[in-house]
């Protein structure tokens, strides 16, 4: 057989190819995956919301404590100034 004929036969070997159908169970598999994804995503949304709330509460607490600290420091400085009436 000549090389050209052989090449042509190989090139034309997909002629008459029939479309293949996937497994009948594939649709159920896809739906299960989608349902699972939805479940996982709602769980992660809850986790993210809880983490966010925790972060905000920690920040508020830290801010409050630092405010209290700075105001008490201010009071100490003022009281020492008023007691001695000297700046140096």
């Amino acid at each position, binding site marked *: 057989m000549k*090389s050209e004929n052989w090449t042509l036969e190989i090139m034309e*070997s997909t002629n008459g190819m029939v479309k*293949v*159908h*996937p497994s009948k169970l594939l*649709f159920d598999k896809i739906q299960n995956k*989608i349902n699972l994804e939805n479940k996982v995503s709602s769980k992660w949304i809850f986790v993210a919301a809880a983490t966010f709330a925790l972060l905000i509460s920690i920040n508020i607490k830290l801010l409050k404590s630092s405010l209290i600290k700075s105001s008490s420091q201010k009071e100490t400085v003022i009281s020492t100034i008023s007691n001695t009436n000297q700046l140096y």
Partner: protein
Amino acid sequence: MALDNKDFEKLYNQYNVLVYNLALNYLQNIEDAEEITQDVFIQINNSLSNFQEKSSLKTWIYRITINKCLDFIKHKNSQKRFFIFGKKSQNEFEISNVSNFEHPGILLENKEKSKLLFEIINELGENQKTAFLLSKVDGLSNPEIAEIMKLSVSSVESLVFRAKSILKEKISNKFKEYRKKKN
């Protein structure tokens, strides 16, 4: 927002054969093609609301499928590279087994020849492979392929032409090897 079950089933019935066959031609493995079909329909379900109708739904689905297949191949190739240094996994047989693939949709008398054709198609570059598969195997016209690949029609013509010449050259080289072995 995701589709409701009835609409999704309708969409699946309309396009599952298209997606599955394209993935099968690309990956030449039944399990991989099914996995890609699953991933494609999950993405369709999740992002159909973002579909802007700049192209037809069919074109959009073609694009998703091609991108998923290319990503899958890249991932497999990186696994292959890893196996050279690392421990061999159970999937290795699957990866090295691509060239032994017999397409279930091909006529019995053409099975052996098409096996060789698919083996050589895998050696083409990404764009040449896509253009050739869409043109020769899926039977799409050049303007349709151009829309899917976001290229000009002349670029697609050139890709298909180049792919065919490379394939012919490689097949003829295989013929020479085959004759040498015989003699």
